């Protein structure tokens, strides 16, 4: 396993960050600072460069600094003896991406090398939120591990929008609506197959993480129940037989855009029965499972970005989490307002985040 190691980070004009330039430690990095200084924004900038999405669900306009014209992130990443440079430039309306100075031709080329896994307070939504949050978890994994998945997902979304637009016409043209059954079935079936292929691994890894970090022996289960089949011909037949329903509802009802990844905790829906602590544990277990699946399929260990873990987990769990990360050899980034958490990673490189700027901080042994 080759760990993904970020060896250089340069950020400007992203949220409140300005002139950030840092050389992280290969293993562990702690970003310390009071509330509202820019700690989460740094993780967001890293993950944005690696996944081209904000884990806080922000739009481009929200990410570009209020005072800036453009946000720029440069990420240098080392893995498997190769070094790659990821460069993203955002304006409020545009995005330019460069991989090693060139426009990447295929999504997998871009996403292949710089995998990050993020765990952050908003992840409770994985358990409590709607199906879209869980579909995003699957999609995040699959763009990195299945060649062509990102393109298939994009094409599926486009075909779906077109078909739904035709369905909303006053007098829908049935032949035109059904013309979209072909691209919809082609890309939709591919999405379903890819999602189904990964769920088993995800469940096993989540179960293992729950045991190791949470010392929990609860049985969790995760199921992806696709209403549309992964076989393209069967998929198209299903669309054809459901077209009258779609016409009546004026929207395409069945397909991977409407599927859920259901979570059960000791046999009951997790959203209903899990306590707050259990909800956090389950969310973390899913993120660690994300890391595990990407590692297993790509033979590279993603970098782990942990935002504000002390607000999410008790000290025992944090200690076991850090021990697990160390064992995996993943590069870890931790943000916290609490120097005591930083001292749980004694060999970490520490940075002080103040008002959008970052400076090296003294090692933990020197702090009071």
């Amino acid at each position, binding site marked *: 396993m080759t760990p993904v190691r970020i060896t250089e980070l340069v950020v400007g004009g992203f949220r409140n960050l300005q002139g950030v330039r840092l050389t992280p430690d290969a293993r562990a990095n702690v970003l310390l600072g009071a509330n509202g200084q820019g700690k989460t924004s740094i993780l967001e900038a890293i993950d944005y460069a690696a996944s081209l999405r904000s884990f806080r669900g922000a739009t481009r306009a929200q990410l570009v600094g209020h005072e800036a014209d453009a946000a720029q992130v440069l990420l240098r990443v080392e893995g498997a003896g190769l070094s790659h440079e990821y460069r993203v430039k955002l304006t409020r309306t545009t995005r330019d991406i460069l991989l090693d100075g060139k426009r990447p031709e295929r999504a*997998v080329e871009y996403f292949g090398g710089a995998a990050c896994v993020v765990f952050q307070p908003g992840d409770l939504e994985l358990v409590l939120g709607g199906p879209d949050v869980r579909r995003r978890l699957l999609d995040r994994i699959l763009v990195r591990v*299945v*060649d*062509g*998945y990102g*393109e*298939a997902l994009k*094409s599926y979304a*486009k*075909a779906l*929008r*077109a078909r739904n*637009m*035709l369905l909303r*016409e006053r007098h829908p*043209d049935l*032949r*035109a609506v*059904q*013309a*979209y*059954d*072909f*691209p919809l*079935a*082609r*890309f939709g079936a*591919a999405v379903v*197959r*890819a999602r189904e292929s990964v769920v088993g691994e995800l469940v096993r890894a989540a179960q293992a993480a729950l045991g190791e970090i949470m010392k929990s022996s609860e049985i969790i289960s995760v199921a992806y129940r696709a209403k549309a089949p992964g076989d*393209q*011909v069967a998929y*198209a*037949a299903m669309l*054809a*037989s459901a077209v009258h329903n779609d016409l009546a509802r004026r929207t395409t009802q069945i397909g991977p855009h409407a599927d859920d990844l259901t979570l059960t905790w000791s046999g009951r829906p997790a959203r209903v029965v899990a306590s707050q602590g259990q909800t956090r544990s389950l969310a973390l277990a899913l993120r660690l499972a994300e890391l595990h699946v990407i590692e297993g399929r790509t033979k590279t260990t993603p970098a782990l970005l942990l935002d504000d873990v002390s607000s999410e987990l008790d000290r025992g769990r944090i200690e076991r989490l850090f021990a697990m990360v160390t064992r995996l050899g993943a590069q870890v980034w931790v943000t916290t307002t609490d120097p005591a958490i930083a001292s749980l990673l004694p060999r970490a490189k520490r940075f002080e985040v103040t008002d959008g700027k970052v400076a090296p901080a003294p090692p933990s042994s020197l702090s009071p």
Partner: protein
Amino acid sequence: MDDTGDPINELVRLLVRLPGVGEKSARRIAFHMLAAEVDYAQALGQSLATLSTRVRRCASCGAYTSRELCGICADPRRATDTLCVVARPMDADAIERARVFMGRYHVLHALLDPLGGVGPAEFPLGALIERIQREGVREVILATPPTVEGEATSLYLAEALRSAGVTTTRIASGVPHGGELEFVDPITLGRALEGRRSL
């Protein structure tokens, strides 16, 4: 600095709209024009200025030509019973360069794309059907691109032409997405679904 009215910047602004030309190469071209012989820039300008009046769409197939009919439509050796339907003139050109197709082309200049403003009402299906009937076309090869719009268009045409009694085939399109995801083409799919569709 206010650039408006500056002829060099004006040229650069026009050049960057060309496919594959960025700001840097646009400047390089602009300065090249200034350094080159006056004749060259003038000939280029003349050629561009008269392009739209000298080039028009072939009255029969829609490809670009300087005459009423393009070279292919005017060629009596080209088969009239086989028609290859493409989205853009350059697609016909690409197939033509392979030198294997002996029929004629039909350029749609559009794909079914409701999100882009081409719904069934705007899609030029009528002209195609009319031509098929007028010229006695018996087989239509659908060579729209393997994109979402291209695939939807090919299935839309396959269905529409089938009810007009014409057989259609889909050009083999090389798998664009490669790797682990494989796909069936729309005609094969259409056949697989024929039984169900008549329900």
